[in-house]
């Protein structure tokens, strides 16, 4: 077991208002569900079904236009209600109505004996969109070989569900999933978990699977900070990350031939009467999930933690948190002269404090990194580990400095610029 390279007390635990949790875990299959592409730029797709078709749970409903092997699958058995495409045949969402007596799609798992076959199975069964690559984020390309894979069995974001609870009784599936992932890379497969008994037996696979223990405070359980510490991503060394629950689902797919869609989701936020943990599925309808929980009054349904949410109706792919926040009354705009004098100089400079250092878990020289980000200095930011990071990893720094999304936007702009420069 490896302990993380810096003090396990590093990081912050920001508090957000939320009512106490209801006891027990409810099992909710929503009447409607949506298939969406991962958060980020929308992707060109080819729909494989028509409106009105009946699909099985786990059946492919769309595939990538330029890589038809990579499929997006239905999270529940149902009837295709609506296919909405954006201009350029980019996928917005495919909405499904649940049918009570639906079937489950089965895959032939004999092909997964080889690395190529496993890759094809993951792409056709819908596991592929659950992977995320660094640098730059998004789904990995179909033939990309990662330098390492990080499996996150810890989530330190506020109100995140405990992955240990999601993995209870699924240790065999997780082990099988990790051994499968080991086939995809020549480098290590690292399982990040909280202190406590190890989730897997030592010495499985070819010996490249390692368990890493990290501390309880955010951002120690953030994939980007972990990758930065353990195996930094580079332009020619992509690193993939995957949630441990999804790795266990991959293990179950290899055992049974069908991909389980169950996912542990925590619902919290200031606009609720009760917070709750539920078993649901990707693309779940947030209105139905929160129906009996919200308190009266205007509110916004968001997918993601209070640090990095976005307003939506569906549980986003990879997300395991729902945050319901009160809708604030639109503020009175300040007088034009006051606005001209005070708002033209935004963003305000970041003052180095202990809080800023801890917002990166002490793993990155925070102030020079933030200064390089705001100055648009790509080279320096890359030297500090920019390529290992994504929006969710700097979301805490943005929150701490009270800048309202400034650094997240700067990071995304810089990553996009580096991506286009190196693609050219």
């Amino acid at each position, binding site marked *: 077991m490896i302990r993380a390279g810096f003090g396990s007390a590093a990081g912050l635990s920001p508090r957000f208002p939320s009512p106490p949790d209801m006891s027990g875990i409810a099992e909710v299959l929503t009447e409607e569900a949506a298939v969406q592409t991962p958060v980020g730029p929308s992707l060109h797709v080819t729909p494989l079904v028509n409106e009105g078709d009946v699909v099985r749970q786990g059946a492919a409903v769309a595939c990538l236009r330029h890589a038809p092997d990579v499929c997006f699958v239905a999270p529940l058995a149902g009837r295709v209600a609506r296919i909405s495409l954006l201009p350029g045949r980019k996928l917005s969402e495919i909405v499904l109505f649940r049918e009570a007596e639906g079937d489950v799609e089965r895959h032939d798992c004999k092909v997964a004996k080889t690395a190529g076959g496993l890759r094809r199975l993951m792409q056709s069964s819908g596991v592929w969109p659950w992977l995320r690559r660094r640098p730059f984020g998004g789904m990995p390309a179909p033939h990309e070989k990662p330098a390492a894979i990080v499996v996150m069995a810890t989530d330190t974001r506020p109100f995140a569900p405990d992955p240990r609870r999601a993995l209870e009784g699924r240790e065999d599936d997780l082990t099988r999933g990790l051994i499968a992932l080991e086939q995809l890379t020549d480098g290590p497969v690292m399982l990040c978990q909280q202190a406590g008994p190890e989730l897997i037996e030592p010495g499985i696979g070819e010996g490249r699977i390692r368990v890493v223990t990290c501390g309880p405070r955010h951002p120690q359980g953030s994939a980007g900070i972990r990758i930065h510490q353990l195996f930094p991503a580079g332009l020619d060394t992509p690193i993939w990350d995957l949630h441990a629950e999804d790795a266990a689902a991959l293990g179950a797919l290899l055992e049974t031939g069908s991909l389980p869609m169950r996912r542990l989701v925590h619902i919290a936020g200031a606009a609720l009467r009760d917070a709750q943990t539920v078993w649901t599925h990707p693309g779940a309808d947030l209105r139905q999930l929160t129906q009996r929980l919200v308190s009266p009054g205007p509110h916004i349904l968001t997918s993601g933690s209070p640090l990095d949410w976005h307003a939506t109706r569906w549980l986003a792919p990879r997300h395991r948190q729902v945050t319901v926040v009160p809708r604030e009354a639109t503020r009175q705009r300040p007088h034009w002269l006051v606005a001209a004098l005070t708002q033209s100089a935004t963003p305000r400079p*970041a003052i*180095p404090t202990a809080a800023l250092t801890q917002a990166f878990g002490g793993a990155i*020289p925070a102030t020079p990194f933030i200064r390089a980000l705001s100055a648009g200095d790509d080279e320096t930011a890359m030297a500090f580990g920019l390529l290992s990071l994504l929006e969710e990893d700097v979301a805490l720094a943005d929150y701490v400095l009270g800048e309202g999304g400034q650094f997240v936007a700067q990071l995304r702009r810089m990553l996009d610029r580096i991506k286009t420069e190196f693609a050219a």
Partner: protein
Amino acid sequence: MTRGLWSRETVALMLLAAYLPLALFWLWFGGAEALARLGLSLLVVGVWHLVFLLARAQPPSLAALITALAIAMLAPEGLGGFRMILGISFGVVMGELVFGGWGRNVVNPATVTLSFLGFGFPAFAWPVFDDPVAWAAIPAALIAGVTGTVPVAVLASAALVGAVAAASGVLPEQVLFAAGIVLVLLVADPVTSAATTLGRWINGALYAGLVTLFATGWAGAAPVQIAVAAALLTSLAVPLLDEIALALWIARRRRRHGRT
């Protein structure tokens, strides 16, 4: 969207709260004269912030109050209105406002002002502090350090080196007092002190080392003059210290991972 606490103005307010014991003790012992100096420097600093707000839409910061307090406490005595206004204008405009305001400045405006006044008008006597005022620097450092608004490493390394020098008997008591107040007010400023942990340790040690050097080798210098000169030289060396610390950090990562 809910927002965190540590915006620029919160840090300025926390620093102000930390400096409150120092300011109150100094005003208590300084009386009306101290109040008049504080009023004058507040007025001049405020006017320049207002000028930059109107001319360049550069929002003013509460850190202006900290600058004014440091200048009023440490400036040479008996300068008269004109010289004070000249010195403060130079320091605040060239040290802070032309760079874009507090948070973007490279040197502390109060350090620039004090150096300008001290070396420009050497005939005037530097202030001398009463013991309770100097002791009040300790709670100020504690409050600022515990809230995380000033780098603890700077304070700790300066205190360590200073303690060694004081124990070996090379630092007179008055120099120690002045150096402590300047450390809290000027050197440990979060913006212009070093930004990396290693850089911070060297930063504090360098300041204390320079104070010791000047105390032993600079004949006829006033205690506050020694401390201000050491603060100025330290703040000029800070970018280099940070650069060294970052180069070491990057080299270590490159050795461990083969890339950064």
